[in-house]
């Protein structure tokens, strides 16, 4: 069957066809293919079919008969337009290069500075582009939020862009529509709108262009209102600043200048928009090298077990409500005026010791409050930082970077009230998914139904999109023009790397429609905004800013407000609550739910739990024992009459009587990866208590679920794998680390000789915070497949790089150590001699090469690898069928077949790329020129790679440090990857008192 057959249809059918053709004409490229498929299921088409081919109709009705399959394949072959994607430089035509565009060499990647958004704020990145296809994001070293590194989310955005489940067409009340239909329909909606009937809802956003457009919009539609809702937002921080400083201010920190850091439930190493920068600064303050052994000291009080807590030198697991009492006790001990000492869960003597430590370090300290703590704790932190003299040295305040905050946007609760009152004629949602993630007490879905009309702009046709009048597919941040501010206000430009795959629109383009300029492209809108803002030769400034990624000197001026008297804002610390407390926290992978459909993040083992593909109610060992829970027991969680069911998981060091409920799961319409995975903690979250709430009831249901973890055993069994010591022990005896693993290295075989380079790596366990950025970077760089929960359950995850986590000591304490573990590229590799077909061989530069083509899959090498870093394609794990994923892959790395072994290659493709460049330029490869993907992503610079034959290379210098050691060297494997021991810097006073 083809469309040509149908052209002989009678008059009546011809009309139906004309309508269908019109519909098809609206679709282009990938959409076209999809729409044909979807078209087949419409009532019109079936009717037409019945009239035309009564006998075939039955066949067509079958869900996926062979016949229909073949018809669709044939049709898609005949009719499909553009397959894959459009190169960045071409607009409408796709033809292979006849003349090579300037600057493009096929096979050589180009990098473009752009930014990705974390909590609405810019993280500057360089996007790697292969012939117009973005394949990888690297940190932009020039950008203040990145400093050259990225986080796990940024690394996974590439997959999000190519996600085949992204929304691909405009939807009108759930039916397929088009941008043209939308723009024409919306103007009449706007014309008929009662004054004040327009509402805009945004998440956290910092785009100056968007702010300008919003201002225009609010001016254009008098009475229109802007609301802001970010499920994992910084409202408490803003509110705390308002309390203590009298105005909503943005606060950021400089940890590199801090010798003593106190975290009040702040997971600043992971979940702050500036965490990438903070990690770097924090680890810079802890680097032990070349005899310099000064380390900062981190005190953490928290309820959940976080990676910030994991790095702490002293940590107390407190009920979330008890943290304010601790903050108050500490403030009193520090002598903050107007704060009286209160009883806290941490002994007063310890609090006094912390205060003495802080005082002793004067202005080189910082107190960081967490976003989940009430505004009073933020205010107390401001007061303490002011009392210590930290403001201006380690703590900085600026005007808010968030445009919603800066412009006094309303809250979601106010919006819901207006919706309930029926006064909203048109609600425009720029991103976000409030139907899923709004507090349960607001019943946003019901309120939404009362809006006259609603428009949802989003990457996915998600829960909210399905309940809106219009859904507009959003252009991904790698597909659209925009801008954003970093944590300090620096303006960063977002440039598209590719034409929108699914004709998505940016928020700017949507707002332009509302402003009556439906044909304005995002490019023009952003340029237009900055043409009014910039002085000097605009084209030069613009081009330079695009090249560098950010506009120089746009960071906000810092302000030094005075802290108001505590009596004005200090509220009594909440009374110790009985029963169990619920803590809501963003999931380390799914975040607030926006990454739920991202397979890379779903399969990413969460730090500390190593859970994949699910969220779980996290409890401490003692609480689990009291409630009779084991890992995977399904519990009924009831809070204020609202109930969800989810599995329990025991986490060492978690606060007792507290249950952490990670957000971001239980999605209904996330896509094929994220729908129906985990439980929805938003169902228990209320606007009154968005972060923690007392009165949680936990009941064991007796049911169980298998949760997939990549690590099952967290006890190091006394083996010398991760070596750690206190910094004082190390100062006294620097040889102590190596002494623990030293043994005679004798061999009857002659050693390998390396004439040229000898590649090696060193991983600083003292810097590694276990943030997982390297793991996802490795996945993105090396085309590592996602295997799914069932395969993770049988221990077949494919990650070449994993972060081994071991807990030490009392399970009630959080004393983990992290050890990134990847192929050690042994000098005498046990895998090499056992391969019968020579598929894994030693290279002339000391790499342990894996020859996929030669591998027959005996798996002997994996068995014989003492580090168990080899990964096997037990099934066809690489997705060879999904079209949209094909352009995503790194063309420099083989996409592996079923039945072959694979493992870390030290990013051999990057070595070869650098070698080619060096040969072309007639020079040697420079130290630092080759960065492995994990090294490049690492925010803490824990990973160093280079030539160990070169005695002055960074890696050789690292390997010369006394704390640099090899793992399992007793086997005489002579690993090329070495590790630097982990150190702690406990306060001698506290150590003595607790001992």
């Amino acid at each position, binding site marked *: 069957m083809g469309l040509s057959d149908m052209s002989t249809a009678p008059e009546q059918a011809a009309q139906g066809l004309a309508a269908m053709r019109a519909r098809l004409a609206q679709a282009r490229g990938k959409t076209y293919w999809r729409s044909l498929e979807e078209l087949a299921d419409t009532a019109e088409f079936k009717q037409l079919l019945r009239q035309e081919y009564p006998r075939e109709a039955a066949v067509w009705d079958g869900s996926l008969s062979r016949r229909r399959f073949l018809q669709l394949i044939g049709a898609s072959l005949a009719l499909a337009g553009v397959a894959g994607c459009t190169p960045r430089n071409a607009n409408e035509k796709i033809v292979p290069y006849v003349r090579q565009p300037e600057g493009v060499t096929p096979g050589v990647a180009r990098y473009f500075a752009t930014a990705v958004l974390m909590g609405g704020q810019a993280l500057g990145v360089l996007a790697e582009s292969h012939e117009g296809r973005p394949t990888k994001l690297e940190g932009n070293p020039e950008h203040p939020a990145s400093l050259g590194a990225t986080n796990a989310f940024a690394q996974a955005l590439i997959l999000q862009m190519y996600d085949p489940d992204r929304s691909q067409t405009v939807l009108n009340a759930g039916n397929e529509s088009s941008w043209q239909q939308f723009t024409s329909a919306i103007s009449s909606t706007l014309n008929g709108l009662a004054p004040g009937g327009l509402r805009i809802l945004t998440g956290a956003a910092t785009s100056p262009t968007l702010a300008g457009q919003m201002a225009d919009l609010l001016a254009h539609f008098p009475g229109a209102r802007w609301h802001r809702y970010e499920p994992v937002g910084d409202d408490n921080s803003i509110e705390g600043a308002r309390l203590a400083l009298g105005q909503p201010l943005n606060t950021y920190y400089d940890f590199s200048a801090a010798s003593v850091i106190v975290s009040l439930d702040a997971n600043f190493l992971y979940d702050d928009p500036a965490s990438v920068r903070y990690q770097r600064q924090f680890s810079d303050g802890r680097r032990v090298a070349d005899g310099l052994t000064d380390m900062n000291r981190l005190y953490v009080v928290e309820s959940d077990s976080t990676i910030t807590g994991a790095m702490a030198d002293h940590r107390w697991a407190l009920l979330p409500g008890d943290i304010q009492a601790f903050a108050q006790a500490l403030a009193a001990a520090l002598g903050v005026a107007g704060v009286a000492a209160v009883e806290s869960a941490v002994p007063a003597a310890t609090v006094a010791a912390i205060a003495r430590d802080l005082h002793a370090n004067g202005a080189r300290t910082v107190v960081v409050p967490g976003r989940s703590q009430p505004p009073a704790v933020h205010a107390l932190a401001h007061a303490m930082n002011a009392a210590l003299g930290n403001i201006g040295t380690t703590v900085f305040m600026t005007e808010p970077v968030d445009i919603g905050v800066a412009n006094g946007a309303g809250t979601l609760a106010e919006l819901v009230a207006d919706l309930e009152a029926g006064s909203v004629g048109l609600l425009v949602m720029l991103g976000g998914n409030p139907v899923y993630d709004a507090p349960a007490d607001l019943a946003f879905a019901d309120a939404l139904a009362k809006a006259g009309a609603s428009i949802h702009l989003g990457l996915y046709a998600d829960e909210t999109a399905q309940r809106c009048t219009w859904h507009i597919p959003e252009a991904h941040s790698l597909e659209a023009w925009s801008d954003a501010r970093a944590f300090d206000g620096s303006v960063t430009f977002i440039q598209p790397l590719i034409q929108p795959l699914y004709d998505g629109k940016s928020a700017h383009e949507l707002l332009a429609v509302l402003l009556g300029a439906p044909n304005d492209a995002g490019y023009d809108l952003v340029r237009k905004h900055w043409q009014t803002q910039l002085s000097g030769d605009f084209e030069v400034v613009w081009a330079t800013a695009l090249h560098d990624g950010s506009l120089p000197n746009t960071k906000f001026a810092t302000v030094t407000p005075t802290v108001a008297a505590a009596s004005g804002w200090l509220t009594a610390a909440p009374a110790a609550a009985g029963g169990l407390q619920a803590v809501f926290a963003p999931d380390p992978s799914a975040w607030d739910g926006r990454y739920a459909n991202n397979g890379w993040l779903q399969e990413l083992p969460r730090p500390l739990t190593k859970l994949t593909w699910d969220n779980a109610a996290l409890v401490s060992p003692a609480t689990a024992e009291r409630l009779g829970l084991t890992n995977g027991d399904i519990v009924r969680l009831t809070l204020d009459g609202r109930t969800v069911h989810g599995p329990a998981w025991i986490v060492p060091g978690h606060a007792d009587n507290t249950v952490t409920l990670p957000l971001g799961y239980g999605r209904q319409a996330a896509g094929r990866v994220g729908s129906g995975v985990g439980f929805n903690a938003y169902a228990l979250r209320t606007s009154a208590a968005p972060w923690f709430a007392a009165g949680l009831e936990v009941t064991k249901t007796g049911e169980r679920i298998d949760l997939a973890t990549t690590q099952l055993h967290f006890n190091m069994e006394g083996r010398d794998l991760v070596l750690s010591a206190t910094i004082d022990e190390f100062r006294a005896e620097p040889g102590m680390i190596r002494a623990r693993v030293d043994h005679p290295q004798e061999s009857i075989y002659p050693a390998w000789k390396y004439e040229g380079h000898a590649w090696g790596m060193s991983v600083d366990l003292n810097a590694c915070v276990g943030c997982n950025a390297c793991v996802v970077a490795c996945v993105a760089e090396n085309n590592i497949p996602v295997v799914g929960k069932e395969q993770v359950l049988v221990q077949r995850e494919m990650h070449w790089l994993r972060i081994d986590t071991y807990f030490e000591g009392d399970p009630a304490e959080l004393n983990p150590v992290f050890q990134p573990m990847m192929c050690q590229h042994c000098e005498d590799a046990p895998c090499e001699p056992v391969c019968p077909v020579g598929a894994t061989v030693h290279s002339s530069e000391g790499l342990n090469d894996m020859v996929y083509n030669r591998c*027959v899959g005996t*798996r002997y090498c994996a068995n014989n690898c003492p*580090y168990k870093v080899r990964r096997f394609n*037990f099934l066809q794990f690489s997705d060879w069928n999904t079209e949209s994923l094909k352009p995503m892959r790194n063309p420099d790395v083989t996409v592996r077949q079923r039945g072959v072994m694979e493992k870390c290659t030290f990013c051999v493709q990057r070595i070869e790329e650098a070698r080619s460049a060096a040969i072309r330029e007639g020079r040697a490869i420079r130290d630092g020129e080759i960065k492995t993907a994990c090294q490049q992503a690492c925010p803490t610079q824990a990973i160093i790679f280079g030539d160990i034959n070169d005695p002055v290379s960074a890696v050789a210098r690292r390997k010369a440090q006394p704390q640099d050691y090899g793992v399992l060297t007793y086997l005489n494997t002579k690993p090329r990857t070495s590790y630097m021991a982990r150190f702690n810097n406990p306060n001698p006073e506290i150590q003595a008192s607790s001992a």
Partner: protein
Amino acid sequence: MIHEQSIRKELIVPPMDRADHVPVIAPGQTFESVNEQIGSVVLRRGFQRGWLLGLAIAFSLLMLFLVAVTWLFIRGVGVWGINIPVGWGFAIINLVWWIGIGHAGTLISAILLLLRQQWRTSINRFAEAMTLFAVACAALFPILHLGRPQFFFWLIPYPNTLDYWPQFRSPLMWDFFAIATYGLVSLLFWFVGLIPDLATLRDRAKSAFSRVTFGILSMGWRGSAVHWKRYQDLYYLLAALATPLVVSVHSIVSFDFAVGIVPGWHSTIFPPYFVAGAIFAGFAMVLLIAIPLRKYYHMENFITDRHLRNMAIVMLTSGLVVAYGYIMELFMAWYSGNEYEGYMTVNRIIGPYGWVFGLMILCNVVIPQLLWFKRIRTNTLWLWGISLAVSFGMWFERFVIVITSLHRDFLPSSWAMYTPTFWDYATFIGTLGLFATLIFLFIRFLPFISIAETRELVHQTGGKVE
């Protein structure tokens, strides 16, 4: 047919049996009675119901094997329970188990022949067949377990344009040669031994088809003195060639483990301990088959209690060597002072797979001690049960070696469990079906006791009486 009990007193005792007065062949046999009794199993028309039933069961298991292998080829080795760290699972356990079973045949045929142990005569033929079939089953697994089985021939050093050559340092490479050589020599030995019997069958066959088939297979054997001379020379030569293989094959299979650095594998005691284990398992399997076979075909006069008893003693002896191996492994783990070896040993005994270790000790060490008692040794039912226990026990031993060593090795972060899937069991049980099918076909279509050698035995012993 003459009954043993009724005429025992009148007959002289065959030379081998002075010790316990049980003959290796029941008295009163003539050349003709030997030809008739053994040959008739093959030349009889029609099929017995018991045989058909047995074959049907075996064949349905073989079909299960084909289904399992088809699914394996469609989906990949991921249909099994293997993972990282346990990269080898049932496939390698089965390989080692089957190869072990395949040892008894060559031992009985070659070594006992060279040592002039006449009692081997009536059991050597089917022991050799069993060897051959066991090796066939074993040889399937190294191919099936490959991630890309379509490229198994890359293990063969063959001239090619890919500039491709195997990696001879790998024990898997040695394995390939060891198994291939063993299979080839076993086949030759078995077939050469069959030639005179095939000629006997040719001469006795009534149907034209049988005559032609056996005629071709007997390769023109006429029984002349020259034929016999050459036959003897060749047979002894092959026996001499096969003898080192008894030791070498399982030694090399043990290198697959011993060359590895995995605690629990890396052990110098493996070669002798594996060979002893192979003989142990091989004799258990011979008994497992011989006992019902002689009962069903009323061959008690050829496969006498004397055979069973001797085999029981070999089993007991090799079992003690195996037990010594276990003890030395424990000792060395302690004596080495190596924390990884130490943990491995403790984990073997009381870890999550400790129950397999317990079963292994029960089946391989405890139960075979019953063979010290003559009453048990001479009771076919007991002997059969003990043989069954040993067969299971040796499979458990390989499970302990392969799985328990791998599942917890050096880095605790990578420790995991191995859970076999339906397809693991299906493949294993399927090869049992393949083995049994081949055995059933063999006992029906070829003489499962050597006619020629039995006649020789009759000539040397009972023949004189008549």
